[in-house]
């Protein structure tokens, strides 16, 4: 009997080949879309889960139950800092949860937003040079330095004039111009002749603060137990520098931030142009973005001239004149010409830049090994600055190309706590005892450290104060110590954390372990809440939900279209086959038989189309699994955990595609099939050929 149904179905499918082809194609396409869509999304999901878990999130995140905001490791999308509550004593929480079966470790964390500042800017350094020249009586240097400083002041006036055009409040800007105009070449020479020290002082205290190059934007910093972090987060990878020692205030900057925000702008622009040329075949001639970059470059000459200083400026000018075959009087004109790039001269000048110019300037605002001042606002609302040592740059494999996820730096936990304005119990007790001691005694050497350690205002001023590089090199080590550059590694896990990453053992079942963890939290009434990577990653996690939604809607629409088209085609078929069905009914076929004829027909087509669609989709995924799917846009790269996604095919994707098309087929045939059963056998008698 089945053979009969199938035979009729197949014959009908062949007889109506055009309809069959159209309907079959839609079915196959639907299946294809489901297979491709679900396996791509699942692959993205898995890749993202691995990247996010292995970089910052861990297997689970725990944070305070009193949190006002939801934990969002990569930011909630708003600039304002989220209030996720506090874990007062991380050590207690770690002790309570680390012996849960399947849990390997807890890593304390806290995110804070700080501005970065180096110790002094270019004008500061020039002032120091001037001081050295003055004290060593190098008149030649002095003659070069003063006009040089004056030219910077002149440039700054031009900048302020430009600002005045757009600014509403010009009063403040006028005041700035007034200060800057004191540093013209003639008035500086006069002032230097009268009182050299006063002039140097004025350059440091009045001119330097107006040079805004050292004011850097705010960065998100993740405070954590760095050794534990590196051990448990396998996506962490050091790019430049060294891993910090456990007993020093340490800072690691994301490679992406280092390159994008902390590199000399000319170098960065050149890098971007090079990258676009090499990776995306984008050239000045036909790419707007490249044109914009090329156009902006000559205007950025100051980013180099300021760095050079007067002597190097003269030398480089000569070299550039030789290289360009020109005869420019000033470095400014020579640089402007050098930085006027075309597709033809780009490669050569790029090389020349790195060989001859980059070596003379400070390529990054901070060099590895520098001390950086982190400035932030404590919980209580005070400004707080601390010095940390910049040990190196890192990236999170897979997430590094994303602004969203690659924009977090790593800070040691103790410094974090202090920037956050929270000391651990020992420090508080110590501070208390010191305070009482201080009232009667002089501060002893060991106490001084602790005193400075805990006192907000004291370290604030110390850290931002710029000290001229003179003869205190011998003191540096001691000074650093006193400012608290060394830490007690044992205190990393003691005291406050804002959240904590829970790391599972490799062989632990994630679902069961999470259940156990939640049971433990409930049993011991620990005021914690648990978040998985998707919810803990905030915007990033929501993105996956949106992607899933988009796919679902797309599949829903294609199925709806399939449904309507199949329904139409089968209704047409019913009308065309009225005589045939009437004859079958007259001969003695029951209504159910007629129903099945139609159902099996679409089912057979569905199975064939489903197999074809699933095979093409599956084949494509298998191919991409080897060849990789290139990210269609740069913004997509982080979703793919790299420039290419290597999706994997699961039997569930094939199954889902196949089963959904069968369900759609059956649903869409139900109405026409019912219609067919209503055909009366008497119509067989009325058939005229």
């Amino acid at each position: 009997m089945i053979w009969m149904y199938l035979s009729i179905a197949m014959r009908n499918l062949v007889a109506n080949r055009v309809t069959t082809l159209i309907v079959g194609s839609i079915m196959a396409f639907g299946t294809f879309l489901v297979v491709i869509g679900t396996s791509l999304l699942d692959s993205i999901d898995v890749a993202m889960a691995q990247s996010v878990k292995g970089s910052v999130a861990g297997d689970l995140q725990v944070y305070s139950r009193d949190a006002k905001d939801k934990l969002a490791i990569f930011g909630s999308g708003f600039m304002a800092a989220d209030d996720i509550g506090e874990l007062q004593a991380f050590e207690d929480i770690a002790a309570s949860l680390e012996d849960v079966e399947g849990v390997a470790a807890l890593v304390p964390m806290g995110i804070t937003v700080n501005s970065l500042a180096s110790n002094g800017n270019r004008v500061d350094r020039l002032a120091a040079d001037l001081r050295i020249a003055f004290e060593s009586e190098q008149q030649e240097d002095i003659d070069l330095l003063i006009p040089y400083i004056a030219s910077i002041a002149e440039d700054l006036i031009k900048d302020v004039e430009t600002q005045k055009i757009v600014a509403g409040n010009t009063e403040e800007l006028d005041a700035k111009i007034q200060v800057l105009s004191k540093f013209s070449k003639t008035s500086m020479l006069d002032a230097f002749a009268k009182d050299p020290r006063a002039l140097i002082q004025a350059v440091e205290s009045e001119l330097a603060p107006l040079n805004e190059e050292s004011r850097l934007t705010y960065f998100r910093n993740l405070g954590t137990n760095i050794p534990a972090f590196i051990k448990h987060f396998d996506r962490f990878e050091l790019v430049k520098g060294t891993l910090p020692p456990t007993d020093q205030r340490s800072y690691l900057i994301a490679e992406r931030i280092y390159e994008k925000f902390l590199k000399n702008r000319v170098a960065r622009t050149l890098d971007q142009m090079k990258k676009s040329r090499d990776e995306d075949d984008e050239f000045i001639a036909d790419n707007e973005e490249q044109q914009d970059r090329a156009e902006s470059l000559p205007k950025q000459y100051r980013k180099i001239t300021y760095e050079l200083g007067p002597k190097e400026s003269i030398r480089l000018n000569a070299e550039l004149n030789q290289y360009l075959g020109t005869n420019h009087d000033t470095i400014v004109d020579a640089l402007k010409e050098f930085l006027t790039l075309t597709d033809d001269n780009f490669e050569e000048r790029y090389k020349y830049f790195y060989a001859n110019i980059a070596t003379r300037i400070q390529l990054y605002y901070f060099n590895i090994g520098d001390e950086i001042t982190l400035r932030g606002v404590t919980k209580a609302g005070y400004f707080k600055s601390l010095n940390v040592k910049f040990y190196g740059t890192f990236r999170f494999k897979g997430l590094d190309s994303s602004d969203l996820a690659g924009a977090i730096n790593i800070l040691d936990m103790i410094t974090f706590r202090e920037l956050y304005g929270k000391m651990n119990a020992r420090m508080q007790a110590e501070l208390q005892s010191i305070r009482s001691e201080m009232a009667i005694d002089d501060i002893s050497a060991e106490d001084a450290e602790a005193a400075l350690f805990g006192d907000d205002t004291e370290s604030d001023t110390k850290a931002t104060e710029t000290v001229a590089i003179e003869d205190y090199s011998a003191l540096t080590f001691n000074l650093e110590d006193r400012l608290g550059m060394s830490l007690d590694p044992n205190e990393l896990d003691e005291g406050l954390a804002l959240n904590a990453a829970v790391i599972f053992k490799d062989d632990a079942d994630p679902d069961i372990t999470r259940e156990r963890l939640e049971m433990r939290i409930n049993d011991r009434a620990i005021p914690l809440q648990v978040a998985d990577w998707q919810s803990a990653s905030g915007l990033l996690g929501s993105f996956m939900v949106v992607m899933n939604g988009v796919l679902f809607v797309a599949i829903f629409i294609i199925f709806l279209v399939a449904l309507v088209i199949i329904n139409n085609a089968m209704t047409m078929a019913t009308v065309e086959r009225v005589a045939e069905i009437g004859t079958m009914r007259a001969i003695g076929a029951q209504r159910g038989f007629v129903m099945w004829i139609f159902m099996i027909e679409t089912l057979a087509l569905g199975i064939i189309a489903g197999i074809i669609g699933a095979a093409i989709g599956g084949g494509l995924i298998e191919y991409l699994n080897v060849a990789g799917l290139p990210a269609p846009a740069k913004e997509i790269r982080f979703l793919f955990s790299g420039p290419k996604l290597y999706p994997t095919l699961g039997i569930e994707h094939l199954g889902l595609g196949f089963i959904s098309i069968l369900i759609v087929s059956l649903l869409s045939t139900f109405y026409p099939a019912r219609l067919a059963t209503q055909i009366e056998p008497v119509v067989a008698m009325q058939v005229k050929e």
Partner: protein
Amino acid sequence: MTPIVSIQDAIKDYPLGKTTVRALHGINLVIGTGEFTAIAGPSGSGKTTLLNLIGCVDTPTEGLVEVAGSNVAKLSERDRTNLRLEHLGFIFQSFNLIPVLTVFQNVEFPLLLQKKWTSAERKERTETILDRVGLSDQIAKRPNELSGGQRQRVAIARALVTRPSLVLADEPTANLDSKTGQTILDLMKRMNEEENTTFIFSTHDQRVMDHARRLVSLGDGIIENDQILGQRAAS
């Protein structure tokens, strides 16, 4: 001779717009097993309506129609379908073969619907009947590859393959030329004689009527004449 069809005072009305048209004005007719009966009459005389009632594809508005001992009006749709499957065979004016099936599959079709035969039994019966109608060499062909006469022979084979007690033929030769029509009638007649199958066929063709052994003439929905034309030789 047991009656296979028994009709008493059958009236059939059809709705036509707001009015009704009475196609049959009280028909009384008994047809016995093994008869070879023609129902004749001009268009609109009600012969197709009568055939529909006998064929259990329609029920009377009033009166009684009994086919193979069952009151057709009292049967459920499902039982009526079964009655057609088990007791009746149909030969249509336009042959009504299923175009997507081969000759063999078309003939085998009612046996499949009966669900009581093994595949070997079906094959044997189908081949036998195709042999009887002279189409043994055409079994793999599709209806559209056959001539009109051949198609009607396939239809006859399909009607007879279940060995029904009654075969209804609605103008079986109307779409055939006279020579082919003649062979088809001869075939039907032979089947009637050899299998003792009752044949009822409608026609308005005088030459066809001449072959019938009983001629029921219809006019305006009533039986105008009912005459025995001759007895079967081997009765």
